[in-house]
């Protein structure tokens, strides 16, 4: 097959081509490896030199290459979580989710750039430089899984792994015009993911279409002796087939479809998609998530609080950067001064403040109660509606540097994705149109463990929307 034909295949189509004998795994890997190596978007922090020798080519994923977000530990392969404090770190083991995919036949193509420790919505917080959006290289790809999203959108990888704590899969997928699934919390093991906020972090796929998302997710789920919070899934994940939405009730929460930050072009694409959904047989109704406007506040207490604890391990003793020091405490404080970027320092300080004596009840305790309210309100909406639908992000991809001077403005990018994270429920972003030539994402969220139904609904919408992602894929590779 011609390289340009190979690049146009979805992962599922590539697997079918390999099974038919029209394509071999080495040819596929080589095509993507050359593109990843010529990456001009700064999407990759490491690219494999050759097809992994220990690949399970007989597995159901047939050696299809996989891009992996930098924060997944991969044995003997740099795993830096976008941070200077882990520069060159080679973990002694591989994250369970990656190992599962390798067992199923995935071949690790490269590691992808990200915001440092997954803290960010633009990828500008990476110690390894920002990632560029393939739709417009003057704009951000979103974050924190920005390298994964840009790589998939640009055709530098057929699909990728990301993680989502408050929107870090869904928002970059939306800004890059691809599909991103944040699964139900606990369905995928977190073992070997360099932790940000443990009660929220969840791994998931970034793919070109909904079928690929189902296929990758199917091979990620499961319990894990190394993660007591990994409960697996109650159902086998099916490949979606639905073409219609007959009988489905979609709830539009007024709190997440209004507000000053919501761009008119995003709203127009969202409303056009609701009309498409009606045409497919769905009914659309307004619903209410009263506490959703407080979700961001609760999130920016809970996530930094957990981060301040998780990031205590980076002290210059066992791995990573060590700064010069004459005594032990100075070793810790100097190493963390030199190794962490500004956003990570900000969040460590917020989290430490929120957990400190005298402030715990006012901040962390109250934030956990808001979390309860949000989970209850989603449960109440799901008694009447099958799914909640919102725009994934209030705006399209913004220009590099546009929000770096104002941390709070950057946090507002997560307004529509954070509530689902707090409730632990699954949500998927699919491309639903363009605004000024830039992709807009539609978010569907459902009850815990509703992935199969949600993927079906997303598939039906995807078929009807007919989004064309090809403008982001340069036909002769990133080097053109």
């Amino acid at each position, binding site marked *: 097959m011609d390289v340009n034909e190979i690049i146009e295949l979805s992962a599922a189509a590539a697997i079918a081509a390999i099974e038919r004998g029209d394509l071999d795994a080495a040819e596929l890997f080589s095509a993507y490896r050359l593109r990843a190596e010529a990456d001009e978007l700064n999407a990759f922090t490491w690219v494999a030199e050759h097809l992994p020798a220990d690949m399970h080519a007989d597995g159901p994923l047939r050696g299809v290459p996989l891009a992996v977000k930098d924060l997944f530990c991969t044995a003997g392969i740099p795993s830096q979580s976008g941070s200077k404090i882990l520069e060159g770190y080679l973990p002694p083991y591989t994250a369970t989710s990656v190992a599962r995919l390798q067992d199923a036949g995935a071949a690790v193509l490269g590691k992808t750039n990200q915001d440092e420790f997954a803290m960010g919505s633009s990828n500008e917080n990476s110690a390894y430089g920002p990632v560029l959006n393939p739709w417009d290289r003057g704009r951000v790809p979103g974050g924190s899984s920005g390298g994964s999203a840009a790589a998939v959108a640009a055709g530098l990888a057929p699909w990728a792994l990301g993680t989502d704590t408050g929107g870090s899969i869904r928002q970059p997928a939306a800004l890059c015009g691809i599909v991103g699934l944040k699964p139900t919390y606990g369905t995928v093991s977190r073992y070997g993911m360099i932790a940000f906020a443990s009660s929220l972090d969840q791994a998931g796929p970034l793919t070109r279409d909904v079928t690929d998302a189902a296929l990758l997710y199917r091979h990620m789920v499961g319990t894990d002796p190394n993660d007591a919070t990994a409960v697996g899934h109650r159902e086998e994940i099916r490949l979606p087939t639905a073409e219609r939405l007959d009988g489905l009730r979609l709830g539009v929460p007024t709190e997440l479809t209004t507000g000053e930050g919501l761009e008119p072009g995003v709203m127009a694409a969202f409303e056009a998609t609701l009309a498409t959904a009606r045409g497919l047989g769905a009914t659309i109704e307004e619903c209410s998530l009263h*506490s959703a406007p407080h979700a961001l506040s609760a999130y920016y207490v809970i996530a930094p609080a957990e981060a301040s604890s998780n990031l205590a391990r980076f002290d210059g003793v*066992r791995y990573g950067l060590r700064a010069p020091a004459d005594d*032990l405490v100075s070793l810790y404080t100097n190493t963390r001064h030199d190794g962490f970027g500004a956003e990570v320092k900000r969040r460590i300080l917020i989290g430490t403040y929120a957990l400190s004596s005298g402030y715990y009840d006012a901040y962390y305790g109250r934030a956990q*109660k808001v979390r309860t309210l949000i*989970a209850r309100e989603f449960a109440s909406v799901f008694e009447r509606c099958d799914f909640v639908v919102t725009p994934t992000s209030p705006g399209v991809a913004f220009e590099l540097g546009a929000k770096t001077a104002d*941390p709070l403005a950057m946090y507002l990018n997560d307004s529509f994705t954070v509530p689902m994270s707090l409730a632990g429920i699954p949500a998927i972003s699919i491309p639903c149109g363009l605004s000024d030539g830039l992709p807009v994402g539609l978010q569907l969220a459902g009850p815990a463990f509703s992935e199969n139904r949600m993927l079906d609904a997303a598939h039906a919408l995807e078929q009807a929307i007919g989004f064309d992602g090809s403008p982001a894929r340069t036909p002769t590779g990133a080097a053109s």
Partner: protein
Amino acid sequence: MLERSEVLHVARLARLRLDDDEVDRMAGELSSILDHIAAIAALDLDDVPPTSHVVEVESALRADEPGPCLDRDVALAQAPAVQDGGFLVPSPQAG
């Protein structure tokens, strides 16, 4: 607005050294973030229980049986400084 002394206190708790200009910048930025977060102080949450974990997880403890762990060499391989099969650090005493 957070005082410089408060920022320095929190930084000390977090074992984080900040440059002088970082302290001033963080005081401003943290204050605006904390102002936004303070919105939840106005909510009536007296009868609401806290949620620390969203998925009901039954105790999933594995059998407590000895098994292999990382070899010492592997565990030490990424350390910045090693001596006598352990992590080498400077003295806890200053100077």
